């Protein structure tokens, strides 16, 4: 025991020496990815398959700092690829420019925000965007509280509301698409960043109404009932269900949204990053379905590959989010940066 102090001391000294001597090594052959947790399951699947494909010669790491947190690292040049559930915003573009970071924006799959109710709910099968707005806009707070306030024939019962937490990209997109302004929502509903909590809540209350990403609905389709959405500005003038066909045809609007990856142009000098992104686009359709996500139409993956090979830098959105866009339109616009 009396040598304990000695060993402990030399251990600490050794550690200090290491810190002083070698310094961080640039991991060669490591592809660093971070960002949205919504995109994570797909990105993980691609990373898993790519590492198998390369037989362990290339290493891929994926983090879940969230879309905003991921961009913070991306614009400092710390990551090669950033996952995002919304397009890059103006201030993030400015930071990237200030740091000399150029990037390529590629949509990789769809998410369909699903408005769902309890399976015992037999009075509603579809809703219009106006009705949803009436429920979710900030003015509705403590005023619109009963089902029959939306349509008189619905029961005189309280609506139990569930929605995404204010820090999630889901919340941003839903409020933008339904209310018309991102982050503008009533506050008196059960909010959670963990979508499994929302599933539990909606499955447990007959008068519940809520929204969540499609992947959480499809994994729980026996415990929830999805609603068809009708939108006046849509090409289809009738309620549309969140299904793979409707999303692929571009008719589930305005609640289907593309999910993106952003690639640092400098990282593309590494051949493994280039290879990874091509592998991603070539296999995304198959892998997306395996992890219960919605793939883009085949044509969109071709356009994305084209954009990547041409190194078309910038974003198709110019820093402001838009809803209800066709994915082909995103990919045929000239990107700005």
């Amino acid at each position, binding site marked *: 025991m009396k040598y304990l102090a000695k060993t402990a001391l030399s251990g600490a000294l050794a550690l200090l020496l290491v810190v002083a001597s070698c310094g961080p*090594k640039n991991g060669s052959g490591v592809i660093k990815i971070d960002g949205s947790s919504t995109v994570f399951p797909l990105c993980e699947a691609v990373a898993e398959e790519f590492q198998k494909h390369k037989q362990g010669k290339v290493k891929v790491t994926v983090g879940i700092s969230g879309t905003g947190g991921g961009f913070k690292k991306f614009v400092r040049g710390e990551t090669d690829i950033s996952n995002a559930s919304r397009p890059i915003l103006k201030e993030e573009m400015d930071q990237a420019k200030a740091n000399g970071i150029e990037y390529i924006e590629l949509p990789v799959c769809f998410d369909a925000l699903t408005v769902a109710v309890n399976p015992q709910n037999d009075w509603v099968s579809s809703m219009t965007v106006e009705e949803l707005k009436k429920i979710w806009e900030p003015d509705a707070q403590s005023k619109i509280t009963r089902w029959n306030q939306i349509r008189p024939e619905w029961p005189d019962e309280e609506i139990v509301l569930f929605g995404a937490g204010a820090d999630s990209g889901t919340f941003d997109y839903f409020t933008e698409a339904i209310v018309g302004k991102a982050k503008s929502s009533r506050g008196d509903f059960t909010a959670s960043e963990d979508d*499994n909590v929302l599933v539990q809540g909606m499955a447990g209350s007959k008068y519940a109404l809520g929204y969540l990403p499609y992947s959480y609905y499809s994994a729980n389709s026996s415990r929830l009932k999805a609603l068809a959405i009708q939108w006046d500005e849509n090409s289809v003038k009738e309620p549309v269900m969140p299904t793979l066909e409707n999303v692929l045809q571009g008719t589930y609007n305005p609640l289907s949204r593309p999910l993106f990856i952003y690639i640092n142009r400098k990282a593309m000098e590494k051949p493994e990053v280039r290879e990874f992104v091509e592998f991603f686009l070539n296999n995304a359709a198959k892998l997306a379905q395996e992890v219960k996500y919605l793939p883009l139409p085949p044509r969109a993956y071709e356009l994305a590959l084209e954009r990547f090979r041409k190194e078309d830098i910038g974003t198709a959105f110019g820093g402001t989010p838009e809803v209800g866009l066709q994915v082909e339109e995103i990919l045929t616009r000239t990107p700005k940066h």
Partner: protein
Amino acid sequence: MADLNRIIRRRKRQDFIFKIIGISCMLIGIVTLLALLIDLALDGLPRLTWHFLTSFPSRFASQAGILSSWVGTLLVMLVTAMTAVPLGIAAGVYLEEYARKNRLTGFIEINIANLAGVPSIIYGLMALGLLVYQFQLGQSVLAGGLTLAFLILPIVIVATREALRTIPQSMRDAAYALGSTKWQVVRHHLLPYSIGGTLTGVIIALSRAIGETAPLITIGALTFIAFLPPAPVQGEAPFVTFDWVWSPFSVLPIQMFNWVSRPDREFLANAAGAGFLLIIITLSMNAVAILIRYRVRKRIKW
């Protein structure tokens, strides 16, 4: 006489009521722990196979494993223990044996006690600014280990001091009387006598650190990582490398957090399996602490 009997009966009844209250308070703690353990075991035990321990994360719940996260947890804990233990013990010994008792040391003491109560996310934010960016350690095992070392340092210091205080003053006086220097007293007497209490504190601190998620996510620990850090021991010279401290990493609680929040419910069993393993690790660390304390106490004869 009847009066006296009534008073005694009343006192005994009060005694009994308090005993019931005490037992039920204790049961709340025990039952919660048991319910948690049983629930985790029911969900997770079928998943705890050799394959689970030796596989990397995967998109298929049945193929996914925790190899990279338990290795990460182990390495991070190694860095944490190697820094927090010597620093904490040295600081504790200094404060208890060397430092003069004045207003400054009083101020330091209060602050160390306060530091032990600071929420862990605050340490994560500090580590992100200081270790990851300022010292450019990056999102490495080293940065993660040092973050948790900061977190448990106050606990180690307090435990060391408590252990030193239990040594009777007469032991120090006797050693001084024989002409020992302060360092000799510390090294030959105080450290060996207090090691039981100190190690108990250290292990309890480490079992707190092993479950931390928030500070490690803040500094950028990863979620999907399908390779291991370079092995610390190699077949060729110089045999021992420290390259692993620069490696990116994941830890068990982060892997659990990711699995719990996924849409596919099959991953819940994986999370339960990893959670069960984590609780087992914590419980066995505590068991080791108890064992050490027991053996050291048996050896000391004064």
